[in-house]
């Protein structure tokens, strides 16, 4: 069953084509990895999927709904949550606040209910605190819950960002280079966590990644991009054995 459907995306910047005719589908509970050398159009594709860019042509459908022209926040509210390449923890807010921010449909986010504490704000807040506690403990960040996120180490920020995304209870989690700058030990834990989440919570993942090993280890489907277009698509083994991909990487890296 298709959760995300991408069809014919195209984006140009000042006449330069960044992405051309990108199409692929992501099924529910699937883990899809997007790979490609520098300048392949991964990041642009990611931004088009998350609404931070609007495409010149093409269509993005999520859960059967056309979301091509929706703003990032509107997509997020529909269950598409993204992370950032460089962990964007909110430095001036404590860890717990970062987590609670991600709660969806908070009744207290209306000015008046917030000021007066009415409309079930407190009950909802308590509920979310429990959820956050559970997640923070899982990510071994519980001890740091009152620390400003800006004081966390790089790896902790990465985990916090993942935890924050999970607070939003997404159907589809879009991860922008989740392994970048992460040590091998943490990489393993992150990958495990992703597989657990897929199995236990029925979550779907799409991630753009440089670390090909990581992608190959957990992806159900790999999308290989080069020069703004999809070059190869299929199981990790298929893409890995595709000569065109090898060529693209060699050409790109040298």
């Amino acid at each position, binding site marked *: 069953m298709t959760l995300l459907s991408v069809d014919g995306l195209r984006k140009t910047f000042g006449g330069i084509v960044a992405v051309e005719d990108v199409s692929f589908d992501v099924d529910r509970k699937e883990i899809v990895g997007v790979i490609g050398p520098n300048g392949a159009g991964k990041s642009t594709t990611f931004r088009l999927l*998350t609404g*931070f860019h609007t495409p010149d042509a093409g269509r993005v459908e999520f859960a059967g709904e056309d979301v091509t022209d929706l*703003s*990032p*926040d*509107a997509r*997020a*509210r529909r269950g598409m*949550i*993204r*992370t*950032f390449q*460089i962990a*964007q*923890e*909110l*430095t*001036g*807010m404590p860890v717990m*606040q970062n987590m*609670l*921010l*991600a*709660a*969806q449909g*908070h009744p*207290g*986010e*209306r*000015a008046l*209910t*917030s*000021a*007066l*504490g009415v409309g079930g*704000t407190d009950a909802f*807040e308590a509920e979310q605190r429990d959820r956050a506690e559970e997640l923070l403990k899982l990510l071994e960040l519980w001890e740091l819950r009152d620390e*400003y*996120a*800006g*004081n966390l180490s*790089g790896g902790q920020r990465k985990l916090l960002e993942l935890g*924050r995304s999970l607070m*939003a209870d997404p159907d589809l989690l879009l991860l922008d280079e989740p392994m970048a700058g992460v040590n091998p030990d943490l990489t393993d834990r992150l990958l495990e966590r992703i597989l657990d989440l897929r199995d236990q919570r029925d979550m779907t993942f799409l991630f753009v990644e440089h670390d090909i090993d990581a992608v190959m280890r957990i992806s159900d489907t790999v999308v290989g991009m080069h020069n703004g277009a999809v070059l190869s698509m299929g199981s990790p083994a298929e893409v890995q054995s595709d000569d065109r991909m090898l060529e693209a990487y060699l050409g790109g890296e040298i």
Partner: protein
Amino acid sequence: MALLDLLLVVGIIAGVYSLLAIGMNIHWGDTGLLNFAHAAFFAVGAYTSAILTTPVLETGLLAERVVGFDLPVVAGIAAGTVLAAGLGFVIATTSVRLEGDYLAMVTLSSAELVRLVIHNEAWLTTGAQTLKNIPRPLESTVTTLPVSYDLFYFLLVWGLVAVTYLLFERMSSGPFGRVLHAIRENDDVALALGKDVSRFKLKSFAIGAGVAGLAGSLWAHYVYAISPVMFLPSLTFLIWTAVILGGAGSYAGAILGAVVIVVLRQVTRFIPGSVPFADQLPYIRLMFVGVVLVVVLYYRPEGLLGNAQRLQAGTSEGE
């Protein structure tokens, strides 16, 4: 007695400035929005309330104001607050998507436009002439009581400051404030987590503008008369100084900053005319305001009551 009267008047001014600073703090301290239109919100509150609560005056050659409603003061204050919030909403609608410093220029220009309109549309505002005979709330009742009117008004203003402070403090520490803080820290994260950033900015702008409008109404009903010269951009900059001095993000700091600024101004009034440079005193005072702003930003960017840890978090490691 007379000293008490003076303290009350200074206290009332400080209360009004505190409300202005509270409004500014939700913009800058909580949401990170650069608002340079505060004087305009103050003006709209003052003029709305004044126009609604005075009758049309037949004063001959000047003051050809043809609009006046003679409504109760409460209605004026409520309308002044709402209309100022409305103006904040309108200004924000046009420009809330702009980057910080561009927003500053648009809001500054909008404020000047508002002042230009107030100055020139005499049929509505009495124009450059003073809009006078603004009624004081409950004046006839209070005079029968054993308290002076200034004491009554002092309590009224500071009562409202207290209520506003509590509401804003709760709002800021609650889920709504959390989203505002997230926007202050990073728009994109808020967007990625499904927060309608523009909407929150609009709300923040309107709410802060509304409080400035409330301050304007309260001021108008205390001073009997208002004119466009009360609403120059320098007022906005003074409130900025108050907020930065008190500590952006802290409502108690905003109030403290406003009180310090007002008290400093008053204290310099007691400097006798015989000291050197006494003639330049008004200017030296404003030069001092400029120095305070720069020095605070350098040595104590968190201000008197702001949160230094918050500002420092994340700066050590960088990106």
